[in-house]
């Protein structure tokens, strides 16, 4: 159901600064909306996003209801060696998704 879009260059030169773009499909329900009957729609958001490279954390974000639906986060990193990026999204109601992307550095 949930799906991630990851954009990582497949190849890079050692020392290059590369941009990583991530998008996770998620409703990001704020918890501040009401139904027509006046009931609050319970909060359902992604609260945490982490990116690890070869097991080492390189980027982390705490997300709040003010992040738009389908959270899109981009950041940068230095290509040091070939390896694998692991992405993890954690949220309300036991939401947990992972994705990964490989890069070869020459």
């Amino acid at each position: 159901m949930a799906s991630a879009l990851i954009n990582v260059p497949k190849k890079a030169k050692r020392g290059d600064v590369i941009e990583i773009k991530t998008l996770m499909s998620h409703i990001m329900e704020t918890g501040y909306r009401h139904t027509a009957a006046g009931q609050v729609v319970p909060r359902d958001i992604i609260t945490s996003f982490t990116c690890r490279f070869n097991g080492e954390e390189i980027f982390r974000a705490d997300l709040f209801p003010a992040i738009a639906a389908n959270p899109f986060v981009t950041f940068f990193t230095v290509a040091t060696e070939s390896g694998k990026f692991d992405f993890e999204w954690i949220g309300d109601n036991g939401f947990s998704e992972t994705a990964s992307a490989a890069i070869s550095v020459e």
Partner: protein
Amino acid sequence: MRKSEGSTRRRFLGLAGSAAAIGAIPVVGLRPAAATQETMASAIRTVVGTATVQTGKVKLDIPPLVENGNTVPMTVSVTSPMTADDYVKSIHVFNEKNPQPNVGNFYLGPRAGRGQISTRIRLADSQKIIAIARLSDGSFWSVSAEVVVTLAACTEELI
């Protein structure tokens, strides 16, 4: 009789005054309908502590006029060499009038290469956005931007 009334009033005002002073520190549990300058200030306090926040070094790219507050692209970039001993530790974004003062916290490291992040945010009203960067030397730098929103993100909308 009059005198005792006067002293009660004085005492009440005194108490109210000190309560207001303490009130600047967050009253947790009381969820406000909208974040205010005070809640934003206290949210910033919890991040920066007692450190002073200086203006500069941070750039906040956000459209000044937004048609749809449901998804507003935002980029925060920090001027930093991003070396092992001089880098951006984290970037924090706050708003004034959404139901919550926090927008997001982003933690970077020396190997990020560039102190920059982008995301898409929601804005419930025309308001001020503040981005604060924490550098590795412990200093805080900030920038703010005013955004006018024509269609607010749905906080009150019936669905």
